[in-house]
């Protein structure tokens, strides 16, 4: 590792605050950008499940076109 | 049955330009308001920055161009709105002339009534900002070309936002980033002229902008109009 100790890594002779702040402000949006669509997709998926269970349509199998 | 006479594009463009010029003459406020706006906003800057001519003349190129840009934006906000409301835009799309050519007459008429007048009047406003008269030819030339490109780009934004309620603010958001190169080239031309440098490079760039705009922008305007007609 380039730095002798963890303290040196954290401090980075004075520039540490900027580097870690930049990384924090990058990783947070990235995590949100990845997590948000997954959450939305799961919501839609559960909604479709509930919808098809509520209207009791047998969608799969030979019936093919849903008997609406 | 009387076969519709074959359409002559030149005649169509001439008659449409005449039509729009006639409409502008009939509603003069549409022509005079942008000029008044231009004057009013220019007056604000000395009030804000102080009356001292040296300082003002340093900032004059930037001020003149930013204000020309904003008044051009104001013109573009009203560009297709009336025609969409009364159905003329629909008929224009139905004309047997390609739509990208059919929109040009209206732009020419708008430019004559706004860009041209603005450019010819700007040396007077320049004087108020301490801009010497020697620079006037470069100012007028750069504004003539600049307002033409800004109208072409603004028309693209106008075509896309005409079908939307309160499309004016949206138009500014879409189009101002595209105005940046014109602003840079225009102020560069003026600054070079002021400092005795050679403004022809910037003026040439503006000229390239006009020809490029005339070629490419109508395609985007036609596509934008077709989208707005779908709503």
């Amino acid at each position, binding site marked *: 590792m380039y730095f002798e100790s963890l303290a040196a890594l954290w401090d980075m002779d004075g520039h540490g605050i900027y580097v870690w702040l930049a990384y924090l402000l990058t990783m947070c949006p990235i995590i949100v*950008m990845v997590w948000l*669509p997954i959450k939305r997709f799961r919501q839609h998926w559960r909604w479709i499940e509930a919808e*098809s269970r509520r209207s009791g349509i047998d*969608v799969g199998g030979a019936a093919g076109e849903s008997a609406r | 049955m009387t076969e519709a006479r074959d359409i002559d594009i030149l005649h169509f463009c001439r008659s449409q330009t005449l039509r729009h010029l006639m409409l502008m003459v009939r509603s003069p406020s549409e022509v005079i308001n942008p000029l008044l706006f231009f004057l009013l906003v220019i007056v604000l800057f000395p009030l804000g920055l102080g009356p001292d001519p040296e300082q003002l003349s340093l900032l004059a190129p930037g001020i003149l161009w930013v204000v020309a840009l904003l008044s051009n934006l104001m013109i573009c906000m009203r560009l297709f709105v009336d025609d969409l409301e009364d159905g003329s835009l629909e008929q224009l799309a139905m004309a047997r002339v390609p739509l990208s050519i059919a929109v040009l007459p209206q732009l020419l008429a708008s430019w004559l009534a706004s860009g041209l007048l603005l450019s010819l009047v700007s040396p007077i406003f320049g004087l108020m900002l301490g801009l010497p008269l020697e620079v006037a030819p470069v100012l007028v030339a750069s504004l003539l070309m600049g307002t033409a490109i800004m109208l072409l780009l603004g028309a693209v934004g106008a075509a896309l936002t005409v079908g939307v309620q309160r499309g004016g603010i949206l138009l500014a958001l879409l189009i101002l*980033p595209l105005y940046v190169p014109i602003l840079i080239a225009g102020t560069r031309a003026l600054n070079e002229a002021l400092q005795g440098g050679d403004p022809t490079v910037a003026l040439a760039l503006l000229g390239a902008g006009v020809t490029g705009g005339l070629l490419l922008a109508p395609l985007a305007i036609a*596509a934008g109009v077709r989208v707005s007609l779908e709503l």
Partner: protein
Amino acid sequence: MWRIIHQFGSPPWVYRFCDKVIPWLMPITIVALLVGSVWGLLFAPTDYKQGDSYRIIYIHVPAAVVALAGYYVMALAGLVSLVWRVKLADTAMRAAAPIGAAYTAIALITGAIWGKPTWGAWWVWDARITSMLILFFLYVGVIALFEAYENKSAAARACAVLTLVGTVNIPIIYKSVDWWYSLHQPASIKFTGESAIDPSMLYPLLLMIGAFYCLFAVTVLLNMRAELAWNHRDASWLKQLVQGT
């Protein structure tokens, strides 16, 4: 003959494509991001001029590169949806716009933070940063236009036109901002360090750029899958998939 070309890339096909690609692309992206960051932060040598603050380059440059590439991806999707009227290109464009805007924002924020130690000011009107700011407004313009239309198919067509116009203008904007910058401030240190960069610093940078590209692809696919699931919530093919699993 006015005839619409076959609906290439029908929703079910693209949905399955997303389902197939995401499971293996996601881990690759995470690994690449972690390795790149650790490599850049911990193992890469320091820069003799700027000191350790240069390590921000490992997120600033990839974000800037992908932000610009993202706009061209969006313009490509727009072109495909304009010319071949493929509905899926509309969803791709709608998915890519906010992500591209986010990357541009990241590039701006990290650029500003980087500017503080090296140039002493939070905001520096450097050519690169200014062009990035204008690119951000182009993205916001596309998103705003999309939200302004009620009829989303027309919105996609309008955004396609806008992105194509934007694509033509981006090089002009970048060149004119450089030209403007070179007049007022003769080239001081180039922000993104075109100067020959030492290989030990370069490899983590290339890895991070690759990681950001994968991340862009994954987030776009995730957004598209969520969008598809909502747009086709009452389509039978989706119900079968939901029932089937």
